[in-house]
């Protein structure tokens, strides 16, 4: 690991250590925050007991479903919009505004329409993630060098072969950036919906534990979510960077 990496690790260890110290020695009230070590123990016990397995499976299932729909549909929509420049120009103002408005405020509207079930959660997850994928697809298709279609003709490649062998790989790093954003947006939207209003799921369980003053349970699940989100985002980020480096693309 590099020097910077070691310093970073040290910073994180000291921060967690300071929190542990402050909690253990009463600088922070246990009713507010429990020591990190106790969070980890509580999480270990909870996972070993299997009590939360159903909720965990439910939440991550919804997240994966929402992200998968957003990525596949977003790519398809992006391809269609890219082929219709006039539609694309007309949609421009909507894309520029989309992430500026709190889309999440429409979650209760979806609950009103579809009832309190999985559907509105998946829908708000897809709605939050899909536009990032559409925009990344448009960007990726824009970045395909024009010379590639000439190369394709020199090699007498058909439309399908050109799309799969040349255009898709040329656009791939930009598409992946879209996937990365879709994953983190989808994750955030699903968890937020479960927190605010949901029949079940990790967000709901944490929010219930908060109401019941069940701090070990609350912090255990919080820790789980933070670990999973950080891990997934770090893997995607590392992959993204490596790809960009290999392709000589400036940091995305």
């Amino acid at each position, binding site marked *: 690991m590099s020097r910077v990496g070691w310093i970073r690790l040290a910073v994180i260890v000291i921060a967690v250590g300071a929190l542990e110290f402050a909690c253990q020695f009463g600088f922070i009230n246990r009713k507010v925050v429990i020591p990190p070590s106790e969070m980890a123990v509580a999480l270990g016990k909870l996972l070993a007991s299997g009590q939360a397995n159903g909720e965990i499976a439910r939440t991550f299932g919804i997240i994966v479903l929402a992200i998968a729909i957003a990525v596949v549909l977003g790519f398809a929509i992006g391809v269609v919009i890219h082929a219709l420049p006039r539609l694309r120009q007309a949609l421009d103002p909507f894309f520029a505004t989309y992430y500026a408005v709190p889309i999440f405020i429409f979650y209760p509207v979806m609950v009103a329409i579809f009832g309190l079930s999985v559907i509105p959660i998946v829908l708000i997850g897809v709605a939050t993630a899909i536009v990032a994928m559409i925009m990344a697809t448009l960007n990726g298709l824009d970045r395909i*060098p*024009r*010379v*590639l279609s*000439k*190369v394709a*003709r*020199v*090699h*007498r*490649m058909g439309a399908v*072969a050109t799309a799969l*062998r*040349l255009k898709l*790989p*040329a656009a*791939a790093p930009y598409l992946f950036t879209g996937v990365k954003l879709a994953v983190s947006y989808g994750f955030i939207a699903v968890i937020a919906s479960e927190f605010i209003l949901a029949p079940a799921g990790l967000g709901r369980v944490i929010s219930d534990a908060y109401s019941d003053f069940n701090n070990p349970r609350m912090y255990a699940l919080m820790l789980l979510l933070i670990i999973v989100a950080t891990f997934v985002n770090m893997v995607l980020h590392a992959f993204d960077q490596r790809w960009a*480096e*290999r*392709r*000589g693309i400036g940091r995305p």
Partner: protein
Amino acid sequence: MTTAPADAAIHASLKGVTRIYPGAGGNKPVHALGPVDLDLRRGEFFGVVGPSGCGKSTLLEVLAGLQQPTAGTVNFEGKPVMGEVPDGIGVVFQEDASFPWLTVWDNAAFGLRRAGIDEAETRRRVDDVLAFMGLKDFARAYPAQLSGGMRQRVCIARTLVLQPRLILLDEPFGALDAQTRLLMGDEVLRLWRRTGATVLLITHALDEAAMLSDRIGAMSARPGRFMDIVETHWPRERDSTIVGEVAFGEITGRLWENLRGESLKSLGYAGMAAAE
């Protein structure tokens, strides 16, 4: 064989070729090229020079079958070229067309794999072409890790490996610095001699054309036509050291004499276009 014996020496030809781009969105149609007649002799090195925007690249793309001529006919090895790049023609473009997602080795192997050549033969030919192009040590590298000149070599290797009989080079060294260009010129001469292929090189650099070519066609400003075709009479064994010869100066002098007025025209044209 329907080709007359007298034509056996003619490898490819353009007859009365013009290219007019239809005006888009209320603009006037653009007459880019022609009429142009050209016979490429089998195995010769033909250079094309001309002011920017004179239709040099259009000429190359029409010859390659990448564009349809508006009028006239294109022939390659006795068969008309119709809307498809014929087998036996290789093209190297001005833009960097190396595939950044493939290693140098896989870039070179691309065409062979498309053609379904078996793995052993592919390996033999790719290794051979990489050694020839001085890319052997970079076989596992990705294009982004290489300089512009090396990337253009990758593109040349990808073309050569298919053993084209006519190689079309569209200002392949336009983006490189002058010294690198001279060295790349040596490489091209070497590959021309070894493959025995016919080469057509488009360039805006008079010295490059004068040093590499057996014959040089000087094109007029748009619409591009050949104003003069200069024979250089260089020996087949030649390299960049001929830039020091007296004849070299005479050739570039004659080319510049032809092109000076045309380049001014094209500059003036550009100036007018910018003022609009």
